[in-house]
């Protein structure tokens, strides 16, 4: 791992541990994870169930507290940050895409996209919004409610929302977990393009080698620690790696 002072970091974690419960019943989800996410890169986090990949994402995104270790978004340390400031940080500097249930059913697509900006009371950058809406290809669906959109379209709206505030980093938690392969491809392509065209930083948790192959590098987690890393992944290379790790 190279520590570069010239490349800005979008996020960083150092010796993160996370333990649930206490005493004999204690379960360790993260056992000392250090990772750097350079700005403008697309990182996948992979690992079997219970490897701690979701926990890592939650801790790095300020959704969950850490037991020890430190985490930063940009230059700002979020470990130990009070809830109120964390909320504001999530709102202004982080974008989220979840596996399901990303959108508020009562808002039309356009309003879902601008929701974080509206919550903050920021007026959206129209030009940027147009750019995003064109990128996700949903201009004719903006006045539709989530229930009138397909699963893939819903996820694309969620990505548009994540990008709308020009966050420092986007965390995507199994964004294609509920989608068929065609819709998955569209969503992943969109995430890829957001990195390539807009210089967005994306961290995606996934268990799908095909999904991981869209990213710049893959970080493999097992039992709460990073066990391997792979640059320029292809579905085959990811699969090979997973096999190797499984042995």
């Amino acid at each position: 791992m190279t520590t570069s002072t010239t490349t800005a970091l979008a996020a960083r974690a150092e010796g993160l541990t996370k333990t649930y419960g206490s005493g004999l019943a204690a379960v360790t989800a993260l056992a000392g994870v250090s990772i750097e996410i350079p700005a403008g890169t697309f990182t996948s986090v992979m690992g079997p169930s219970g490897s701690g990949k979701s926990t890592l994402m939650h801790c790095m995104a300020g959704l969950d507290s850490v037991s020890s270790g430190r985490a930063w978004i940009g230059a700002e340390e979020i470990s130990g940050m009070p809830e109120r400031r964390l909320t504001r940080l999530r709102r202004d500097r982080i974008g989220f895409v979840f596996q399901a249930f990303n959108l508020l059913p009562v808002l039309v697509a356009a309003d879902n996209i601008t929701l974080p900006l509206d919550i903050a009371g920021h007026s959206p950058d129209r030009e940027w919004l147009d750019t995003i809406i064109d990128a996700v290809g949903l201009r004719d669906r903006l006045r539709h409610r989530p229930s009138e959109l397909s699963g893939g379209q819903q996820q694309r709206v969620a990505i548009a929302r994540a990008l709308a505030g020009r966050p420092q980093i986007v965390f995507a938690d199994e964004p294609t977990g509920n989608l068929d392969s065609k819709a998955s491809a569209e969503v992943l392509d969109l995430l890829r393009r957001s990195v390539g065209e807009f210089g967005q930083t994306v961290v995606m948790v996934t268990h799908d080698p095909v999904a991981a192959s869209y990213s710049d590098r893959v970080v493999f987690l097992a039992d709460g620690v990073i066990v391997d890393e792979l640059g320029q992944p292809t579905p085959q290379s990811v699969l090979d790696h997973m096999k190797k790790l499984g042995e």
Partner: protein
Amino acid sequence: MLRAMFRGLIAHRLRLAMTALAIALGVGFMSGSFVFTSTLTHSLDSLISQAGMGTDVVVQHSSPAGGFGAGSGAPQPIPASILGRIRRVPDVAAADGGITGHAQLLGRGGKALPGQFTVATSWPADAAFQATYTRRAGRPPAGPGQVMIDRASARAGHFAVGDTIKVLIGGQARTFTISGSTGYGSADSFAGGSLAMFSLSTAQQLFGQAGSYDSIEVKAAAGVSAQQLRDEVARILPPGITALTAVTAAAAQTGQLNGQLSILTKFFLVFAGVALFVGAFVIWNTFSIMIGQRTRELALLRALGAGRQQVFRSVLAESAAVGIVAALAGVGLGIALSKGLVVLLSGFGLSLPVTGLVVPPGPLALAAGTGLAITLIAAAAPAYRATRVAPVQALRDAVPSPAGFSAQRLTAGLAVTVVGVAAVLAGLLTGASLVLTGAGALLAFIGITVLGPLTARPLAYVIGFPLTRLPGRTGVLARGNTMRDPKRTSATAAALMIGLALIVAAAVMVDSSRTMLDRQIAVASKTSFYVQATSADIGLTPHLAGVLAAQPGVRAVTEVRATDATVAGAAHKNVDGVDPATIGSFTDLGMKTGTVSALHSGALLVTQAAAAGHGWQLGDKVRIQFGSFGVSALRIGGIFANVGPLSDYLVSNATFTADTGRRLDSVDLVRAAPAARGPIQRTLAGYPGAQLMDEATFARSRGAVLANLLNLITAMLVLAIIIALLGIVNTLALSVVERTRELGLMRAIGMRRGQLAQLVAAESVIIAVIGAVLGSALGLAFGAALAEAFTRSQQATVSIPVTQIAAYIVVTALAGVLAAIAPARRAARLNVLEAIAAE
């Protein structure tokens, strides 16, 4: 199955507690009314029986049965000579004449001493009738300047034997020396009332009864039955005076009081019924939402082999458990509440003698049973819906989707509403049949609730509009949420709608009546000042009219007396006594037929409206019952157009006093130059029981009874509003649980806790205002119909208290915020990660 049910109960304990509270409040109100009236009946019974202690026969005045022209004779108190004749009856051991009236004891500051009512009597000279007055201190009243008061009043006013005390008699303050104090039976006071006792001759003089009695108590010689004694005494009495056994007299009094109490009981039960009806909505809605949320669980039970019957029974058993707890809690609450009712009523000017607490088991069981039955009925529909859950739904990702609005629903809703409204109108038009009107209102409420989902969406859209300006889109989201499930929103708002509709209807009705009163007075009155008694019981001494007439600037004064009577079978009608010679120069009666002077010969004048209502003609006989004084049949000697400051039925003061035994004025009408105000005011300094009013304040004071009634009705209906608010709390809390993931998502993408709380509060306000708006609209319609129906006979008036209704809506909106507190806190406290992961 049972275990699953109990797990469900425990899991939803908070929601169910709210639901139980909704029913418990209704049951509490109902059982509280029962306890209250039982206690009151008991208090009065014991009061009446204590009054008769040592007495076997009571001799009292009565109007001659069917005594037309009773008014042509002189007043008929019992002449003192009768007492002597009674004493000579062989089987009489003792007999004593007495005077009763009203006298208000004043404290040292000049303010009335506390007491639920005021009684003045003469001290029985014969020791045989003194047993009731126990634990006496000092001596009985002897001279003209002495009074004996009850122990409770002495304690409250810090009076000791030998002190001087001011006593208000006929509105005039007089000073006496306290000769002693007394208990009454086992109590320190006269069943909560104050007692002033004077020597017989003093009482006769104070109450204008020189040489006569109000009643004579007779004690039988040993071995003579009360009935036998009565017959013997009755034989020597002249017409117009009767003898009753003490038991009969007490029974008659008790019967009359119970008759009045049953009106009070009905009054309370109506409100208890409203509370339970609203409570039923809350239960129905809560169970509906909970069934919706448990679709998967129920489907799983079905998939595992539970039959439809089992599902139905388990849901119903759940509601029964809630109902039983609620009913029992309600009964407990009711016992506590009954005390509150006494306080509430006295706060609205209705004082009652209440001692001790009587808990009637039968009526309480009825109240509890009603609560349980209503819970079961309200839960039956959701329970049935639970049986319709298909087992396969356990496997689907069952997001409870709000059912659409069907054409059947529209038809059914419209049909029920139309039938309800028709019943209301029919009830009002055909002589105001309350049962028909009430049933119609009930149907209309149900119909409008069925139609609710249709109106909930557009209403939420409009009402929520101002909230969309809230920063952070919370208002838009809130509005969206209330529009998401219009059925739920409308069911929640419906409960509030009912309470508000009734409050608004009452307000419109009362406002209309007051406006009518004002207009009536304004149209006819030629009076400059009104000197009115502050207390109807204490009244004004007739002597005051002469004093007023002697003041500089005063041109003329006339005395008006007033009483409550049963006229042609209709209870609680006002009958006024007036001076036939002068009344015409104080108010323009606008005689249609007959003459005012017909009053001189004992005739009755009625308003055109009353005559039209009953189909009376000049010369017809009208039966009027004045209190316990029997029935008079008075001939109609004239029909007049303008009620003015008087009432629908007028008799001469002579007739009035003869038939009521009442020698006090209610109001003196004064014609005077404006400059007379000062002298009149100064004169009244010696009459704390009299107040000087101009036309506007007099009109307002006449409306004050109505205003009090409105306040009482509103206070009663506030309970229904509280229950409806519990319903909002429940719906919101259940919605928060249902939308856990959504709320988690909002928190994840940066919504602050405060914003989330604001969101929930905004939803609550929208629902509350929907209820308030629907309720006000409905209330306006009902109120206008009621006002029209009730004022039509006199002068059709519909007046809408706009600011008052606006205030109700604002208060309801604020109450909506209050209802949101608990659910909003719950939403704000959600753990983001758990919320996102929630199923």
